[in-house]
């Protein structure tokens, strides 16, 4: 690598693109949705999923109150909706009403599940801690929904049927080049 070496801060987009998800929560008669790019599974047994959130986010407040959150995966065709969700504040507006977001019923929790999602997880909080300026919220995945036709054998995404939404940083969205998929056996 012919590289520069920085010890100062950067925007840390080197690790992008990342799947842009919509995290949902509900508490005390209020609900909200936010766009999140920093997330990962942290265990498969039990199935757990972690999301990195700003502590001042309204959604975080609802999660801290209800101890539940939803993880929704929306297709590239919904990039404008995800950006609208990510660019507005739940303290000021009801995003579900404002952006006309259709919701499915959750099975094991009270979190909103987005109808437009090709897959969604319902999570119950098992950890919530601070790393630097952000909260790291980890939930056990207690229920999972997915459009069966979007999954190929082995349960990986069928890219002929769904275009996952990737975020590159600085408001740039894109999807996957399905013609580049290659199987590389270990």
């Amino acid at each position, binding site marked *: *690598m012919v590289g520069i070496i920085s010890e100062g801060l950067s925007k840390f987009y080197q690790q992008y693109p990342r799947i842009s998800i919509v995290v949902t929560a509900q508490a005390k008669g209020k609900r909200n949705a936010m766009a999140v790019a920093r997330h990962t599974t942290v265990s498969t047994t039990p199935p757990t999923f972690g999301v990195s959130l700003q502590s001042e986010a309204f959604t975080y407040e609802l999660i801290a109150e209800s101890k539940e959150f939803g993880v929704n995966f929306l297709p590239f065709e919904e990039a404008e909706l995800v950006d609208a969700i990510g660019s507005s504040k739940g303290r000021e507006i009801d995003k579900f009403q404002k952006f006309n977001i259709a919701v499915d019923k959750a099975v094991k929790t009270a979190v909103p599940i987005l109808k437009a999602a090709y897959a969604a997880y319902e999570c119950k909080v098992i950890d919530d801690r601070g790393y*630097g300026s952000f909260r790291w919220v980890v939930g056990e995945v207690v229920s999972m929904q997915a459009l069966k036709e979007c999954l190929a054998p082995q349960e990986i995404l069928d890219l002929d049927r769904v275009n996952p939404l990737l975020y590159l940083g*600085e408001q*740039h969205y894109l*999807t*996957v080049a399905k013609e580049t998929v290659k199987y590389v056996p270990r």
Partner: protein
Amino acid sequence: MTKIISEGIGEFYHHYPRVACVITAHAKEKDNVMAVAWHSVLSMNPPIYGVAISTKRFTYQLIIDSKQFGVNFLPYEAAELLASVGGSTGYEIDKFQRFNIARDKPVKTTVPILTAAYAAYECQLVDDRSYGDHRWLVGEIVAVHMAKEIFTSEETLDLDRVSPTMYLGGNSYCTAAKDTRRYLDREVYGKR
């Protein structure tokens, strides 16, 4: 649309594709390298990075011994190398030697930095905890290596110059479709 609902959980690849990175470590004269898809930035100030690793991995032991790890981002053209380092174990072979992996010098730690990487982080371990069958290793990023010419002025990847390796699950790799990139202005979409 009918969704299938399950409580029994399989591999759960819905949250893929994810950028496949290479985690490196060095301790007691030994080096190792492994492929990881579960990782994320956790804070910007200070910069903190987390990776999920099974305790069975040789790399995990090296990280625990040295309290350091490297995160390397390789282009799509290196997918075969990622599969090779992901499909072999450092308990049995020296992967650097076996796969002929060239390296650059680290600046703040002793972790191997891959020459083939377009960017890499050097991390000092600050937390190590378990959420189940994997350890969650968290490090403060103490140095960033990046090939400046493949990043835009906004510090995002210039996809005309680099194709990131993304892992789809089930030993399948792909990259991002640069022709589909759209800029969505917050001022427009947040207020529509």
